């Protein structure tokens, strides 16, 4: 049952990052596909499910702290639902090997982008007021 506990720990560790909103889900995908031997389709499905309790557990704190911009969130959610339906539809129709390569290319792009990003003006000052 070692694998079960490893999965629990991996979920908890990436869950902290997911709670921050910084891509814990992506790390969990990497853990599942690169270390735990889960195939890309299943890993993606698990990851989507995983985000429900994880985000659900962090969201009340964000709302309470007043960090959620509802005016921005509403239209983003509406358009996002349409986008995510199309994306999920395409992914579940695709060959699993191909999907895995796409995923690798996407990770490289994000990694390079994040690594060489100029620190933005408000980045290190924690609570710059909303514009």
């Amino acid at each position, binding site marked *: 049952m070692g694998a079960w506990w490893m*999965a629990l720990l991996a*979920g*908890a560790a*990436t*869950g*902290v*990052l*997911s*709670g*921050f*909103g*910084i*891509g814990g*889900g*992506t790390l969990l*995908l*990497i853990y599942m*596909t*690169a270390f735990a031997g889960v195939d890309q389709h299943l890993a*993606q*499905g*698990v990851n*989507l*499910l*995983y*985000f429900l309790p*994880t*985000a*659900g*557990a*962090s969201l009340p*704190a964000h709302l309470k*702290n007043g*960090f*959620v*911009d509802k005016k*921005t969130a509403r*239209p*983003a*959610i*509406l*358009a*996002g*639902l349409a*986008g*995510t*339906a*199309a*994306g*999920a*539809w*395409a992914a*579940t129709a695709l060959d699993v090997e191909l999907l895995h390569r796409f995923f690798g290319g*996407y*990770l490289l792009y*994000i990694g390079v982008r*994040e*690594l060489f990003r100029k620190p933005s003006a408000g980045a290190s000052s924690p609570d710059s007021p*909303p*514009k």
Partner: protein
Amino acid sequence: MQKSSLRAAMAGGAAGLVNGFFGGGGGMVLVPMLTGRCGLDQRRAFATSVAVILPLCALSSVIYFFRGGLDLTAALPYLLGGLAGGFLGGKLFKNLNMDWLRRGFALLILYGGVKSLFF
């Protein structure tokens, strides 16, 4: 429709596409667009991203479930871990150095990318 709503909708649509296709990672598209185009500060962008991605993941999970046999038993330990981690993340979020977090995160992502592409 107001311009700011339109920009938010574009950001959400793009994030949704990625989130559905890769089964996650929508936040990494959404956060930079929220800080750039929508003019939110970093902390607000991250927290708002959590609120936006949650319903998207709910919808995608349903689609994955009906189209590709999602295994609930395999998912269970990740869900339980995520629940605890997410709760902690929400609590810690107020006192976080964003830049520091970002760099470490980028290295991990690069490692995963190399591994997925070439191995």
